[in-house]
């Protein structure tokens, strides 16, 4: 009789040994735990030091990856509460224009405009999205989809804030170190802050509860709308920051700040990287953005391809790359025969 097999997944030995304080018993175990966390962070922090060597192209790629990573991180935090944003470009554009306007009309330097734009932008975005928080999730998605398109058309029609031409000759960033380090550090700070908030506090437990079953959370005496509003504000910060930063990086702000690219890319990064993990979307950004830049020759076809890939990913691999990698790291698979033969 043929023996049938089934697939079995078991934690690796080293994972089992690391599960408690025993992780401190040997260097190998400590390395196992630290490596996946420390290595990417170390790489990111060292990268700017190579600035003269790697060339402008790679500098731009890393910077842009950080920017998209910030947008993707922002998206993931909102998604963790059940708010799906189809328009990260909205937050990005608001931050970009506030920074640009402060610089252009009032002559304020980047050190002032960027933080102001980040905070004020987050506040404005939250206020505009407030009406949707009481409603079904689809209204939030709808509104975030519609707002950047609206703002683009308003600017085009009323010609305010530079109209179709935009505001140019804005102040640049002080030096190349700032250009490279600021987005990287911002990304890491937000990433670790959010991970702590979501996974290591009771606040985070409440957030996950809201995503799961908001009525049950309400029955527990929690004002879910206030929490949702807080999260929209907190999650907007990296996105508005990204917009403000890029305005001074390019020394220009215009209608393209609300472009669809800034909405689709972070979404794709989150889906590919792994929704809900916070680190996943950032990982996704560092995978997808370099590819995106490399495909520059294709022009707008890129967006089409990314959108299509996004749709396919959502359907076929919803858990994302991060979960897959993590599983592979911690567990291995083997085939086990079903049924017990005599003896045993």
């Amino acid at each position: 009789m043929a023996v049938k097999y089934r697939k079995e997944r078991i934690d690796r030995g080293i994972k089992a040994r690391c599960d408690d304080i025993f992780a401190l018993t040997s260097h190998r175990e400590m390395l196992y735990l630290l490596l996946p966390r420390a290595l990417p962070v170390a790489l990111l922090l060292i990268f700017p030091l190579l600035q003269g060597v790697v060339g402008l192209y790679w500098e731009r790629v890393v910077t842009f990856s950080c920017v998209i990573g910030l947008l993707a991180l922002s998206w993931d935090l909102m998604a963790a509460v059940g708010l799906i944003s189809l328009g990260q470009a909205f937050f990005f554009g608001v931050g970009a224009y506030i920074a640009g306007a402060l610089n252009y009309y009032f002559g304020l330097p980047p050190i002032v405009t960027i933080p102001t734009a980040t905070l004020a932008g987050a506040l404005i975005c939250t206020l505009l999205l407030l009406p949707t928080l009481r409603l079904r999730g689809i209204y939030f998605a709808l509104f975030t989809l519609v707002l950047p398109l609206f703002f683009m058309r308003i600017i085009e029609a009323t010609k305010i804030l530079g109209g179709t031409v935009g505001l140019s000759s804005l102040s640049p960033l002080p030096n190349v170190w700032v250009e490279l380090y600021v987005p990287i550090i911002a990304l890491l700070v937000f990433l670790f802050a959010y991970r702590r908030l979501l996974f290591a506090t009771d606040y985070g437990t409440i957030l996950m509860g809201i995503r799961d079953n908001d009525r049950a959370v309400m029955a527990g005496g929690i004002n879910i709308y206030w929490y949702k509003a807080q999260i929209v504000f907190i999650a907007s910060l990296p996105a508005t920051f990204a917009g403000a930063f890029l305005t001074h990086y390019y020394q220009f702000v215009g209608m393209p700040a609300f472009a669809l690219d800034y909405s689709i890319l972070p979404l794709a990064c989150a889906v590919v990287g792994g929704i809900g993990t916070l680190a996943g979307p950032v990982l996704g950004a560092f995978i997808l953005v370099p590819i995106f830049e490399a495909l520059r020759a294709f022009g707008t076809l890129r967006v089409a391809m990314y959108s299509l890939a996004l749709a396919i990913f959502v359907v076929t691999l919803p858990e994302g790359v991060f979960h897959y990698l993590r599983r592979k790291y911690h567990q291995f698979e083997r085939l086990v025969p079903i049924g017990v033969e005599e003896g045993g």
Partner: protein
Amino acid sequence: MSEPLLKVASLSKRFGGVVAVDNVSFELEKGGALGIIGPNGSGKTTLVNLITGYVKPDSGKVFFKGRDITGLMPYQVANLGIARTFQLVRPLYSLPAFKNLIIPLCSPRVKKLRGGRYGDRDAVALDLLEDVGFERDSPVPYKLASSLPHGYLKRLELARCLALRPELIIIDELFSGMSMSEIASTISIIEKIREEGVTLIMIEHRLRELFKVVDRVIVLNFGRKIAEGTPQEIVENEEVKKAYLGAEVI
């Protein structure tokens, strides 16, 4: 006599053409236990939804400790001290059982009553689970809520209510789906809750078990209150028998 804890005055609600609750009034004094019974579709759950703020009444008022709470949001009602369970249990599936209780422990009400920081709450949650019958030193409290059997989920609902430190608990069909032994242990849990001074409202179909626990019963049929009294009086009431069994019985 002092104010009743809960006073419901002429609550009514219709959904489209259907009258769900029709001019229902009752009072409940502190420390009492009230049962609400009635055939399916008689408006029991809607009545609870009206009291706890999930549905806004068309007319009528609800008073809790003398204060008008009609139309308040569900979380405001909860923070005033009214906890409720759901007929279709609503745990937070992706979280472990004890983490489910963290949420009410973070509510403004509990924060005011006990304070506490992160880490403290886990211990409180585990204590609460033990109170409702989860085995203490077992992996059960740490399991994901999605993997718990039905009886445990019902008790988790109850724990969620207790976590809020309520003055009034409204339980919607606690015994349904439980085995006889589970019901017996649950009844002793409920009796313990009552001893601590918590007022109780229970909606139930299993009348024999219910009548062991409550002092008074009201009966709803087609949204109207058709009877009120002690369990003994209700059992002998002709209207109630007709409502449950149909007019042709005797």
